[in-house]
C-alpha cells in the first residue's frame, strides 16, 4: 500500500519509541485511520516520550499533552468546545495507556462515558507501567513478571471491556496491531458514531515484555489466536459481535515467547489456559453463540 494524500502517515518518523515498539505501530495505525482532521490528547507516558522532545513533535495532528489521569475529560472538553463553535468535521481522539485507563484514569473515563461525550478513546494497553520502568498495573496479566511483581503477578487482568459495557456507551471494541485492517476498520466505524467510543488495543512492548524487537505483531496475532485477547465489539453495552474466529492455539504458544512469562510453572500455564477458555465461552454466550 502506498502512502497517499488521503492516508498520510500521521506518526512521523524520527519518533523516540524503542525499536520494535508495538505501541508506536498502534498509534501509527490509529492516526492513519483517523486522518488529518483530528485533535489528539496524550498523557505523560510512552506516548509523550515517543512524541519527541520539545520543540519537536512526531504527531502529525494537533496534539495536547494533558495530565496522566485526565485523557478522557480533556478530550471531552475539546469536543464540547468544538461543538459550541459549530465545528463538526473534527474528531477528538484520546490516547492513554493501561495505567491511565485501568487504574488512575478510570474514574475520569467513567464520567465521560456516563455523559456520552463525543470522543474516541484509545487505550494503548501494554500491560504495565512501562515508561516508568515496568511496574504492575491492573491490566498486567496473571503471573507476569514486572519490576513490582518479581515472582509474577498474583492478580488477574481487569476486564475493562465489561466495565465500559456497563456504561452502555454506543461503541467499544478490542483491537490489536497484528490485525491492522480490523483495527483501522474499527477506528473508521467509531468515527461515524456519536458519543463515547472506546477502543481497547493490545500493544506488545518488547522492553517490558522481555521480548526480541522483531516479534510484536506476531505476539499480537498469537494473543488473538490463543484467545488471550479475542477481537470483538460491543454496541450500546449489549450487542456483542466477535470479529475473528480464532484458531484456538494453546496459550503456551503465546506465553513461551515472552521473557515476562519465562518462570511460569506448568500449573500456572494451565490456569491461564482455563481462564482463556472460560472467558471465550462467556464471550460467545454474550454474542449469542452457543457452546
Amino acid at each position, binding site marked *: *500500500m*502506498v*502512502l497517499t494524500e488521503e492516508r498520510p*502517515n500521521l*506518526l*512521523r*518518523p*524520527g*519518533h*523516540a*519509541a524503542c*525499536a*520494535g*515498539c*508495538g505501541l*508506536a*505501530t498502534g498509534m*501509527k*495505525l490509529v492516526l492513519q485511520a483517523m486522518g488529518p482532521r483530528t485533535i489528539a490528547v496524550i498523557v505523560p507516558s510512552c506516548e509523550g516520550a515517543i*512524541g*519527541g522532545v*520539545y*520543540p*519537536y*513533535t*512526531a504527531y502529525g495532528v494537533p496534539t495536547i499533552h494533558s495530565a496522566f489521569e485526565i485523557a478522557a475529560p480533556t478530550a471531552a472538553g475539546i469536543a464540547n468546545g468544538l461543538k459550541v463553535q459549530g465545528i463538526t468535521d473534527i474528531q477528538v481522539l484520546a490516547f492513554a495507556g493501561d495505567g491511565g485507563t485501568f487504574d488512575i484514569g478510570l474514574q475520569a473515563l467513567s464520567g465521560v462515558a456516563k455523559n456520552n461525550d463525543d470522543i474516541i478513546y484509545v487505550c494503548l494497553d501494554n500491560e504495565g507501567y512501562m515508561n516508568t520502568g515496568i511496574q504492575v498495573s491492573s491490566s498486567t496479566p496473571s503471573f507476569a513478571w514486572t519490576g513490582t511483581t518479581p515472582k509474577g503477578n498474583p492478580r488477574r487482568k481487569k476486564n475493562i471491556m465489561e466495565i465500559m459495557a456497563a456504561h452502555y456507551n454506543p461503541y467499544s471494541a478490542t483491537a490489536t*496491531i497484528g490485525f*491492522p485492517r480490523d483495527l483501522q476498520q474499527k477506528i473508521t466505524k467509531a468515527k461515524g458514531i456519536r458519543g463515547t467510543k472506546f477502543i481497547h488495543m493490545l500493544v506488545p512492548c*518488547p522492553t517490558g515484555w522481555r521480548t*526480541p*524487537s*522483531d*516479534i*510484536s*505483531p*506476531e505476539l499480537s*496475532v*498469537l494473543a488473538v*489466536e490463543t484467545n488471550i485477547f479475542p477481537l470483538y465489539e460491543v454496541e450500546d453495552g449489549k450487542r456483542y459481535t466477535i470479529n475473528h474466529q480464532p*484458531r484456538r492455539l494453546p496459550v503456551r504458544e503465546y506465553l513461551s515467547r515472552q521473557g515476562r512469562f519465562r518462570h511460569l510453572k506448568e500449573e500456572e500455564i494451565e490456569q491461564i489456559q482455563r481462564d482463556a477458555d472460560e472467558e471465550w465461552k462467556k464471550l460467545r454466550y454474550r454474542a449469542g453463540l452457543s457452546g
Partner: protein
Amino acid sequence: MKMDFRHSSELVIPISYGSTEVIETGRWGFQKPETVLMTAPCQEACPAGNPIPQFLYLAAEGRYDEALRALLRENPFPGVCGRVCFHPCEARCHRARYDESVSICAMERYVFDATSDRSVDIRPHRNHHSKQVAVVGSGPAGLSCAYFLGLLGHQVTVFEARTEPGGVMRWGIPEYRLPKSVLKREVRRIVNLGIEIKTGVKVGGDLSFDQLMDFDAVFLSPGAGSSLPLKIDGEALKAVWRGKELLERINSGGRIRLGREVIVIGGGNTAMDVARSALRLGSRVTVAYRRSRDEMPAIQEEIREAEEEGVRFEFLIQPVRVSLLKNGRLAVKFQRMKLGKPDQSKRPKPIPVEGGFVKLEADALVEAVGEAVEWSWIPQRLMSRGLIDVGPSLLTAQDKVFAGGDAIDQPRTVVTAIASGKKAAISIDLYLRGLSSDDFLSRIEVGNQGSLSMEAYIAGIEQGRWPEVKDVVPYERINTLYFEPSGRIRERKLSRDKAVKGFSEVNRGFSPNQAHASASRCFTCGTCNYCSNCYFFCPEGVISLDPLLQSRAVDLEHCKGCGTCARACPRGVVEMREVS
C-alpha cells in the same frame, strides 16, 4: 522552526512545531532490512521453470490476463500443462507442510480457460543474429523450441510428418483429458509468432536428413512414436492392438468396435488412456500389469480416475500367449509374477512365480507396454541405445544439430519435453551468436534442478542484465502465522455415468470463486505480493510499497533496525543485514 510560548499570569504552554523527522533515529540501529527476492520451491521443481508465485499472485488479484502473460514467458502450453502435467511443483509446495499444497496445476488451467489470447502481445525480439532453424517434429518439445526461437527472433520451420501438429498432445492423449480446442489455441499462438509448421513432411521420406543441413541449426524432436511389441505368440491376431496406434485411430475420429471385454497390458499413461477410451467405446476393461499398483508409471490421478470410472486392475501377471477361441474371442494366458530386487529402473523387478498361470478371455487385447524412437532416418552415430545422444547443452554428436523430448534420455512427460525445447532454443541461440552455452546456462537457472528462465535469458543476452542468483526459500523462512489454515479445493468433475458415455472433458476445472480461493492460498514464497504486513507493522512508518511500480522502499535514515518487517514478511522476502 517557530517557537511559541503562550503566556498568561499563571500558565505557560510550550508548543512544538518542529517535526521529529530531523532526528536521524536510523543511527540507533546496527542492522537494516533488505528486499531479497528468492525462488519458490515449486518453481525450482517445475521443469519448465514456470513463474508460479508470480502467476498465482496475479491470479489472486483477479489479473488473469497478466497471469497468462507471465506463464507464457516461460511455457507455451499453459492450457495443456494445466490439464495433463504430473505437477512435480505441487509435491514441493511449502504449503503442503502447513496444511495442503496449492492447486498449482489446476490454476494454470484456470488462467488459460479464463482468458483469451487476444490480450496476449508476444512479439519476436529484434535479433541481429537472426538465423534459419529447422525443427523436426511438432510435439511439445519441437513446438516449444520453435516458440522460444521465434521469441528470440529466429526464422523457424517445423517439419511434421502428420496432417496436424501437436504430437502426442494431438494423437495420443484423448479428448476427455485434453480437448483438441485447447491444443488448437496453443498452436495458433505459436504460429502467430511467425513460426512455419509444414505438416505432411516426413524427414527421411519427403526430405532427407542431409537437406536439414541447409539450415543454420536443427532441433530433432521426433518423440517415441512406435509401440514396442510384447513378442509373444498370437500377437499378430486381428483383435490384438498396439496402444498408441489405437489411440491414434480414436483421435482421428475413427469408429472403433473393440467388443464386450477388453484386456489392456501395461501400467503407463498409454495403458490408462487406452483403458478409459475402451470404457467409453462401451467395453468392460481389465488392465493387466506385471508389477503392483505402486510401481505403475502412469500419473497417479489417471490411475485413480480409471479406477473410479470402473476399469478393473489385475496386478502381477504378464501375458505369455494369446490364442483365438472357436467363438471368435481371445484366450490370454498369463504368468503370475512376484516382486524381486530393484532393477535399472529402480523399481522391483517382476519375476515369474513358478507354475503359476492364469487364463483370461476377452474380445480384444491392447498392448501398451512402451514406445521406442523411430530413428531409421537419423545417422547411427547420433544414437545410443535407441535414443538420440546429447550433451548438457542438448547438442548431438553432429555440429549444429540439437535434440530433445522423448527421443533423448529423459523422463517422458509433456513438461520435460517443453523444458528440453526451451533449453535447446537457448543453446541454439547461443550457438548462432557464436557463444558457448557453458558460460550462460548456469546464469539463468531457476533453483538448482536444471530449470531455466527464458525471461532471465532475454534480459541477460539483450540488455546485459543477468539476474542475481536466487536461493530457494527454506520453509523456515515462511512465517505461517500469517496464513489461516485452509484446505485444498478440488476441481469440478463430470459424474462417472456422464463421463464414460462419451469423450467430453471429465475435469471441468474451477469455478471463479474456487479459483480465487485457490490462488489466494499460495504463500508466494520468495516473491513480494504487497500483502502490506511490513507496511502496517513498521513502528517507524518508514516503509512504502507500490504494487504498480513493483517497488518496496525503506527510509533508512529513520529505520531503527528492529527487524519487525523481516520477521513479519510471511514469504521471506525481507532480510536483516548488519551495518558496519
